[in-house]
């Protein structure tokens, strides 16, 4: 909050400076984050991207950020404020900022917006996301290699396509190794609440899970996994220091080069609205170092999968894919297209429980 206030004060001071006619050729880039920059997960990685911009362009850019902005009405206020303060480019880094971003973008046609993980665009609104499901596939393979109870726990945030897609990719990969394994999902309805996430991890382990995967942002679940002696997969950043024994790997978000490219485009005047969905091949995500205690064949399998996904040989959503009722949704050899992936609202076979709608 102090940083936020300082950032706001600096922005206000700059705005005054502009009015006084001391305008410099600085490009102003604003960020709004759903969590605190110190979450060591999702928001932390976006902030690393922001720092990469500063490092790349030095004095030519000025970046500001507002952290812990709740999704909804408050987000609109914050985005509008950043736009009014004369930011040239604004990154809104959570799915729930989608509608507020579009609403404000209409009122500020000269400001460029970049919304992470959304599907609605406009002349001045781009969307960008990473194919995290590719990482989930690799994590699922590892889980299949290490699970002994054949029950894998999955801590989920909100039932949106992004999260459901991750659960499905993970489950299919898991069952490709251990056909009898199942995934238990617990929805915590928050992106960030270390206490609640750890309670969910405890509940899943109490119910027999010996691998914990998460789609929430704090390192609390991997820490609980270590305390209880089960495996875990980190989220967004390398969380191994929280659980050196249990942390198998993590799916790393890497926004740095995308952010630098988009700021460059604004500086050059070549920015255009676009939709980017890059994967392991473009380096928008990567796997964190594998735990040394993992069996060698598990690591080899994971590394092979990463290489095959990069080369295009492997697509995590290749048929046959069955839904929960056992009906074949995708025939053998066929692949789900991006549209189907982006609107996914059904579980594959092997996920326990019903998907909340």
């Amino acid at each position, binding site marked *: 909050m102090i940083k936020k206030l300082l950032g706001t004060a600096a922005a206000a001071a700059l705005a005054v400076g502009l009015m006084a006619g001391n305008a410099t050729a600085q490009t102003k880039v604003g960020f709004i984050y759903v969590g605190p920059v110190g979450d060591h997960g999702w928001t932390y990685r976006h902030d690393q991207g922001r720092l990469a911009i500063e490092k790349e362009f030095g004095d030519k850019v000025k970046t500001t950020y507002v952290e812990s902005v709740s999704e909804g009405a408050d987000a609109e206020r914050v985005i509008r404020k950043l736009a009014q303060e004369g930011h040239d480019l604004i990154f809104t880094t959570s799915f729930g900022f989608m509608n507020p971003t579009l609403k404000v973008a209409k009122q500020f046609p000269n400001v460029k917006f970049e919304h992470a993980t959304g599907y609605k665009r406009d002349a001045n609104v781009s969307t960008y996301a990473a194919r995290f499901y590719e990482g989930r596939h690799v994590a699922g393979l590892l889980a299949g290699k290490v699970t002994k109870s054949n029950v894998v726990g999955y801590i989920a945030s909100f039932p949106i396509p992004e999260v459901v897609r991750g659960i499905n990719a993970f489950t299919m990969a898991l069952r490709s190794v251990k056909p009898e394994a199942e995934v238990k999902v*617990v929805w915590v309805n928050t992106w960030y609440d270390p206490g609640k996430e750890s309670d969910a991890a405890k*509940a899943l382990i109490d*119910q027999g899970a010996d691998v914990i995967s998460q789609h929430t942002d704090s390192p609390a679940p991997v820490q609980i996994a270590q305390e209880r002696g089960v495996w875990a997969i980190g989220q967004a950043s390398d969380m191994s220091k929280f659980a050196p024994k249990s942390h198998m790997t993590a799916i790393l978000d890497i926004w740095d080069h995308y952010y630098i490219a988009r700021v460059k485009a604004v500086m050059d005047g070549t920015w255009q609205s676009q939709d980017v969905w890059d994967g392991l091949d473009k380096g928008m995500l990567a796997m964190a170092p594998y735990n040394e205690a993992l069996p060698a064949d598990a690591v080899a399998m994971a590394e092979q999968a990463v290489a095959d996904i990069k080369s295009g040989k492997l697509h995590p959503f290749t048929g046959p894919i069955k839904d929960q009722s056992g009906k074949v949704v995708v025939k053998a050899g066929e692949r789900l297209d991006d549209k189907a992936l982006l609107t996914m609202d059904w579980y594959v076979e092997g996920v326990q429980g019903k998907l909340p709608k």
Partner: protein
Amino acid sequence: MIDTTAAILLSMIAAATPLVFAATGELVTEKSGVLNLGVEGMMLLGAVSGFATTVATGSPVLGVVAGALAGIGMSLLFAFLTLTMLANQVASGLALTLFGVGLSALIGQDFVGTPMDALPKLAIPVISDLPLIGPVLFGHDPLVYLSVALVGAVYWFLNHSRGGLVLRAVGENHHAAHAIGYHVIGIRYLAVMFGGAMSGIGGAYLSLAYTPMWIENMTAGRGWIALALVVFATWKPGWVLIGAYLFGGVTIAQLHIQGLGVDIPSQFLSMLPYLATILVLVMISRDSLRIRLNAPACIGKVFHPDS
């Protein structure tokens, strides 16, 4: 089944304990007529101070003490603003929370990701190994027992001691208490400091026992839940304890229900702890006259000895 029940009860008690500390402390503060909305900020500072001290000294006892002192420090700031400078209590309390969020993040920067062992749990030979009763009654860390003892002590203090009577008098009618010679400001300072210390310990419980780590904003709104509990428990320590355990219990139970694959929408289950706690506490305290009798009449009002 016994194992699941024990697991739910164990997690429930851990989830409820920070709320019990913070809410009981705030209850005493409010009984003296002061509304301190800075619980969340004080908890966060308690959490980071407790964690940093334990890492630096290796002593969880010192960590808990540091958490309490940090809470007291924050509460003194609030007390100075509202009791000495007569600032608005609501605004000052909100500011204290914002301040606590930022200050704890600043202090905690170097401690994110530092490993630490959780508080040791009680282990009495034989008894702690009994099924169900063993772990649920005798398998916690010392702070859990302290929190229950605290509720009993506060109940006794408020209802059966002279000091408690004076404190309540100050909260009910500060002009009358002042007129018969009590030092209203001094008593309120003490009550606010007690609230700060308890919030600090509640925060330290989070970072030392519940999720043994420091991470920004780790309270995630528990300070606000504690504040709500005080009101819904109509300022009664015993009901605060019931409310906190109920809230913790339903929170944990709904996670287990989801894991078992019961077909209830998870959004509804997430709402359930709030709904159940409010419903139960409203039901047990539906007598509006008694609520008014319990609510401190001077809460949030500015007091100046000469006015």
